[in-house]
């Protein structure tokens, strides 16, 4: 069939193009991590694992890894708790509910830059609305740019604000697919609201939550923009996790090899966690 041959050619071209776009950079990153360059354009020198040993010997690397785990852990936990709570609130049906759902999704629509600027304005040291609120409670201002713990808390809270709607939407879809009979049966058995939540809702959401947890973990571990825009990893590296560390190495200290090595290690760690995760919670297992 001649038309089939055309399809094959088109497929081949599209796949080749994709391979160049998606796979080549990944392999190239690996290659970069084995090389040393004085700048982006200078001749590469093959140093093999020297970048890796150098990175692993840096205390900053391990500190950044630890902070990344804290940042990802806190944001994921809060997003999932809030996301489930919001989904439960939004699961009822009444006129106007679609609008309320739309409003709840709003934070997720905004570009990260817009969120970062808006929160920086709200936290402005003299007339930001949150500073005014802090004054009302007897504080001069919120030292989120100076205090290491507050800085971390600030980026965590803002990240939770932006990305909770993702959990809300997926859980809402999950809630809507739970058959009403299950609740009826639990009610007949005398289960109160809490028991119904623990014994009907949560088990039914399990498969949805497993996927959400995995995706959130990947994204929060790789998060760069919100931290860079709020604190640039400061104060005194208090919010610097692996992506920020890797960016600083590659584009501020102009050592692309080291930056690529950090990115590759972080990708390896993530892959290992994902493999372990699939080992303990196989996605296909449900039913």
């Amino acid at each position, binding site marked *: *069939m001649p*038309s089939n041959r*055309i*399809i*094959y050619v088109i*497929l081949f071209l*599209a*796949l080749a193009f*994709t391979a160049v*776009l*998606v796979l*080549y*950079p*990944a392999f190239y*990153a690996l*290659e*970069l991590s084995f090389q040393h360059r004085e700048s*982006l354009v200078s001749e590469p020198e093959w140093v093999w694992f020297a970048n890796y040993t150098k990175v692993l010997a840096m205390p900053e690397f391990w500190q950044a890894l630890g902070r990344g785990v804290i940042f990802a852990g806190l944001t994921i936990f809060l997003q999932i708790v809030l996301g489930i709570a919001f989904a439960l*609130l939004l699961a*009822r049906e009444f006129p106007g509910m679609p609008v*309320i759902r*739309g*409003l*709840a*999704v*709003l*934070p*997720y*629509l*905004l*570009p*990260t*830059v*817009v969120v*970062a*600027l*808006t*929160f920086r*304005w709200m936290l*402005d040291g*003299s*007339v930001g609305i949150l500073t005014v609120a802090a004054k009302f409670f007897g504080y001069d201002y919120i030292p989120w740019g100076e205090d290491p713990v507050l800085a971390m808390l600030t980026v965590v809270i803002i990240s939770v604000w932006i990305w909770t*709607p*993702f959990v809300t*939407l*997926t859980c809402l879809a999950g809630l809507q697919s739970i058959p009403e009979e299950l609740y009826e049966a639990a009610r007949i058995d005398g289960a109160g609201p809490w028991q119904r939540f623990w014994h009907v809702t949560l088990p039914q959401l399990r498969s949805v939550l497993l996927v959400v947890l995995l995706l959130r973990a990947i994204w929060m571990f*790789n*998060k*760069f*923009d919100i931290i860079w825009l709020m604190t640039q990893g400061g104060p005194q590296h208090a919010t610097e996790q692996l*992506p920020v560390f*890797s960016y600083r190495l*590659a*584009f501020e200290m102009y050592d692309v090899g080291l*930056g*690529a090595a950090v*990115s590759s290690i972080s*990708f390896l760690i*993530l*892959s290992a966690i994902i493999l372990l995760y699939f080992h303990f919670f196989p996605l296909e297992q449900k039913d």
Partner: protein
Amino acid sequence: MSKPISRTIYWLLLLCMVVYSVFPVYWMINTSFRDPQTIYSSIDFVPSPFTLENFSTLLELTDYPTWFMNSVIVASGTVVVTIILSVLIAYSVTRLQFRGKSLVIGTMLYAYMFPPLLLAIPLATLFVQIGIPDTLLSLIISHTTLALPLGVWLLWGFFKQIPTDVEEAAMVDGCSRLKAFILVVLPLTLPGIVTVAIFAFLLSWTDYVFALVMISSDINKTLPVGLDTMVGLYELRWGELMAGSTLIALPLFVMFTFLSRFFIRGLAAGAVKG
């Protein structure tokens, strides 16, 4: 707990959730319409006097209009390239029998898990070497790299659901495969294509990381990076910055109002990587 009390608690919680979700957005819009003279001296919950001064300063005295055009060009380019490629790949993968099919799909999802910086660093180096660093084209390519895996993944799900009988019937009636594809398959997958388009647009329009790494000259900046550089240049003039933020968010709000069905599907599929 009696019914009226639990109902009151429900409405209170719902109200808290809405305020929590909406307040920063409201505050951004509110600030953008305030008189720049009073922004630093008082708190106003409704702009009084209501003024467009921040917007006119922003559009007349800064590079904002250039950045806006750049963002429009890059986002449109990304949408077009992503749709063409993901339709071609997803369709071929569902309709043709060849070895390594599942590998193609698996790789696509795996690519989605790459840390953005792991792609940004080599892409930046690559663009320097092939001579297109610091161009809008380099950004279109980068954003397509990000959007394509999920585009293929989403459309693959759509094409799978369309039974091959439908096109085969058309082909028996004398259509060529191409004609059957355009007349029969494409209309059926239109919702999926719209979803991918929205998702690619969102990703490109909101991207900060790749624009930061790829673009260095002022005239080639896109909105997110451009707006962020204004923070340093204009000594934190929040009125203009909030006006700029509102204008970036505006197209998204408009799209969301009219296309929320597709939007929610795209968002739930993980659009706006992150």
